[in-house]
């Protein structure tokens, strides 16, 4: 089977083919162009059936554009690679391109979601942002990656979990729209860690036992005593360094950190729901993106309030598990147990509008 990504200009060319041998492909391309947004890309799968007939399947495809800020802080920067282009040779630009593709693949192939908004939104990223910039962020429209300072952090595209994390902020923006403050902000962060990790696991074909469950592995330089920025399996253990101190993430609600920093500690308290997801996935075994990931994805689609609390989100995941697998299913039990272990009860809550 030939499996290729078809950018819009090529889709248009296929649509114009006047050749009996490619009638099916041309028809599929014309259908895509008629229904789609102007910049949408698609993927055509060519195969032969048992009778040796050409079978053409049209599926969703990413539409990626990578820009280079050339160490300035002005966005978007100069475009260096668009969908279907050959690699640039710039490591950060090519890692961003590949990472966006891997993230698109998880959401599209596993959850049937066509890009961030579910409707083929182009995926835009900027690399080489700022000078020695120690961060990667989602600005509401694009993913932005710094090069790191070279002393504590290297480039932020080095970990696929980071790219998956940033793009998932976009997915959350178009679904649950969790306010980036306090518990809802920590949930927003956790959802990005969950799917950031699942992007990596799906790309590598890792089971729950094979996965590292680390977020940001490989970002620290060799000077830092730490494996990663966060551990979903064991929050609070990702690093312990003379300069940076110890990973401050709690692994239980009793350790919830009240602080004015970091929008109410959204990157600290995310350890609690992160571990709840890990525990549910670990109890179910197999591939985490299949059942545990599906439940968390389903929960995002429920009508969550912007200021959703841990308890309300936990209840949403239990309801999502019950809807898809049954209220007495192993999946629902695993989700309940995961939350209970981290101190979040799922008994009742009237804040969930479902």
């Amino acid at each position, binding site marked *: 089977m030939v499996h290729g990504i078809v950018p819009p200009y090529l889709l248009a060319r296929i649509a114009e083919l006047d050749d009996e041998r490619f009638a099916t492909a041309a028809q599929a391309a014309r259908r895509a162009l008629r229904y789609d947004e102007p910049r949408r890309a698609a993927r055509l799968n060519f195969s032969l059936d048992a009778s040796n007939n050409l079978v053409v399947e049209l599926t969703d495809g990413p539409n990626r554009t990578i820009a280079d800020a050339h160490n300035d802080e002005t966005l978007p920067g100069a475009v260096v690679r668009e969908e279907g282009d050959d690699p640039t040779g710039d490591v950060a630009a090519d890692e961003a391109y590949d990472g966006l593709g891997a993230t698109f693949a998880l959401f599209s192939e596993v959850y049937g979601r066509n890009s961030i908004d579910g409707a083929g939104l182009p995926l835009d990223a900027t690399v080489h942002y700022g000078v020695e910039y120690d*961060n*990667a*962020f*989602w600005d509401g429209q694009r993913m932005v990656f710094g090069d790191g300072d070279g002393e504590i952090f290297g480039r932020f595209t080095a970990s696929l979990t980071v790219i998956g994390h940033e793009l998932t*902020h976009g997915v959350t923006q178009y679904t649950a729209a969790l306010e*980036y403050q306090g518990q809802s902000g920590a949930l927003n962060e956790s959802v990005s860690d969950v799917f950031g990790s699942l992007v990596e696991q799906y790309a590598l074909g890792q089971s729950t036992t094979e996965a590292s469950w680390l977020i*940001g592995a490989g970002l620290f330089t060799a000077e830092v005593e730490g494996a990663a920025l*966060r551990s979903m399996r064991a929050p609070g253990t990702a690093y312990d360094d003379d300069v940076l101190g110890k990973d401050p993430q709690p692994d239980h609600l009793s350790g919830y950190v009240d602080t004015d920093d970091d929008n109410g500690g959204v990157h600290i308290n995310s350890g609690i729901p992160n571990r709840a997801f890990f525990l549910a996935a670990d109890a179910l075994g197999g591939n985490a993106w299949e059942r545990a990931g599906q439940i968390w994805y389903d929960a995002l689609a429920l009508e969550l309030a912007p200021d959703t609390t841990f308890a309300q989100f936990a209840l949403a995941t239990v309801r999502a598990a019950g809807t898809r697998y049954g209220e007495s299913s192993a999946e629902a039990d695993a989700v309940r147990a995961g939350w209970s272990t981290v101190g979040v009860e799922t008994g009742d809550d009237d804040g969930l509008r479902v």
Partner: protein
Amino acid sequence: MTDSGSDSYTISVVRSGGFAGLRREWRVTSTDAPDVDWAALIDACPWNDVAKPRDSRAADRFVWRVEASDGSRKRTAKLDDGQLAGPWKALVDQVRSRKT
């Protein structure tokens, strides 16, 4: 009214958040760096009129807390990464480069 001419300032900058969620702090006193016109840098900042964040949909951006005190009064501002521009950036950059 300007505070230029006051004896001594202490300025602290706390950066939190970002993808890593790491907290960093820089602190400097005007006596540590007497060559800098700290009063002018501080007075140039709109302490009572901090602009709203540019995009509430953003995530993983740094959060900055800037504090300046001269013994008689303390001024504090909280900024998101997108707001760190103009006089705020000038002050924060100077503190970070003169950190003690």
